[in-house]
């Protein structure tokens, strides 16, 4: 399956992904409706877009007491059936990444559904920080990132810059 991979180093905090997602969700540009959130840390000069990773072993899915969370057979996305969700909020507490939100208007939980396989956030991303990639490829990518930082650390510990 493919998921939305995030490269915080490339993100420029333009928030276009949030607007694109919000528009897709609500037909409006109110960022509150967006399922992807860009956390911006002025002090650290860093920004991190956060969105559901559609965990292989999704705790929200397992725990939902209304059986409202399921995996889309086509895209592999973990999705919430708004007609089944009772609004109990157990999934909010279950997600260790804070990627499920509560829609107070409708009284149900809401999250990324990968837009049925064509995520708008990725389309709108201007910097290449978001990519819709194969989960396995992502694992390789992560390894590269980890390798690079390990090398950097090693060099630092040896006093080499």
């Amino acid at each position, binding site marked *: 399956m493919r998921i939305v991979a995030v490269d915080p180093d490339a993100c420029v905090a333009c928030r276009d992904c949030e607007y694109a997602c919000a528009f897709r969700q609500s037909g409006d540009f109110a960022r*509150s409706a967006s399922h992807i959130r860009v956390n911006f840390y002025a002090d650290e000069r860093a920004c991190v877009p956060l969105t559901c990773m559609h965990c292989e072993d999704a705790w929200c899915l397992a725990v939902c007491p*209304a059986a409202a969370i399921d995996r889309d057979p086509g895209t592999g996305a973990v999705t919430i059936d708004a007609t089944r969700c009772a609004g109990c*909020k157990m999934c*909010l507490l*279950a997600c260790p990444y804070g990627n*499920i939100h*509560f*829609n*107070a208007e409708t009284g149900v939980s809401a999250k990324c559904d990968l837009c049925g396989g064509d995520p708008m956030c990725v389309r709108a991303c201007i910097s290449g920080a978001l990519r819709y990639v194969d989960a396995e490829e992502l694992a390789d990518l992560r390894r590269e990132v980890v390798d690079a930082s390990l090398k950097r650390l090693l060099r630092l510990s040896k006093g080499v810059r």
Partner: protein
Amino acid sequence: MHVVIVGNGAAALSALESFRGHDRDSRVTLVSGEQGPAYSRVLLPYYLRRRLSRDGLFIRRADDYARLGAATEFGVRAEGVDPARRVLELADGRRLGFDRLLIATGSSPMRPPIPGLDGAGVHTLWTLDDAVRLDSVFREGARLVVLGSGFVALQAAWAARQRGLQVSVIELLDQILPRVLDPAAAQILSERLHACDVEVRTGTRAESVETDRGGRVRVSTSGGDRLPADAVIVATGARPNDQLLPECLEPDRPGIPVADTMETVVSGVYAAGDVTRGPTARGGPREIHALWPTAVEQGRVAGANLAGAGRSYGGSLSMNVTEMFDLTVASLGQFVEDEGDDVFEEHDRGGIRYMKIVTRAGVPLGAIAMGAPEGAVLLGRLRPFVRHRRALPDLPAFLAREDLDGRLAHRSAAKERTSCASLQ
């Protein structure tokens, strides 16, 4: 191999699915005292609030069991286990042989020793049948007395209030929700109940309940009052349905003790869910954590081990969340401080009415959040730290990193609805 699962709730279903993840071939039979495909107890108050239809309570379809290769015996109670012959005794006289057994029988509402609780006007909110009965009791203008002030009690009270009943809550201890909230949070919720015209009597004992011939009820309290009512709901806690196999119990202690593998002291017999006394994430003595997420987790481990997968449970961490009287009320782990613990406390932070995080040597132990649902999201982010005892030395920085204020500021600007406002 023949695996028998007793129960059709959170733990049983989770175990069945997990078992099939490891073993596609063995024969499985699921036995449940209640009828039909599974419904969710957690959803019963939502049905009473008319948030869900009766159909919306069911979390499995009839054909889901066949899809998972499980034969079902619905509407048949299991009465006992013969551990030597490895036989489950059913109420209709049949005997079901098993190689491995899972006891996932849940718990039942406790009946405190108050005279008169067997009267016709006295109800519980535990099963689908209970909820359907209560649905016809919930008539606008009727008077309801709720004994107890736990999650079930207050959700029943809220549903009743939303349906236009006059509601009184009687709690023996000095605060409501004693197991889920600290006194400060309980105070905020009490005020909300009061604003919604729910009468709350803490520090009060119900002495007796009388039902007259017309079906009307009177509750006598330790305060010397006699409260007239059309119905009483007893919700003073639950006790495990642990009598199937007395051999696996400890003397005078409720709950079937289980190892990290969810196996009982009887080899090949496992238990999961509300019925167990299990390991906790904190370590220390085993506890009964009668909560839905715990039942799901334990069921998973038990199911895998029924198939011989050799899994070990990391222990339960209590987590509670619900909406009551339009406040999201969430708590996690150990939220009442011991001596030497540090407490981070805040009131009225952008829609979060109250937030408390207890830490010991920089490690968060537990938390409470009340008000906006973003509080529950925050507790979700804290949960891995609590579970894995990971230090979080700078809490304000953590909250900033989580962009809590940003989230609160941008949360959907849905008007601050209150259920009581909509009643007037």
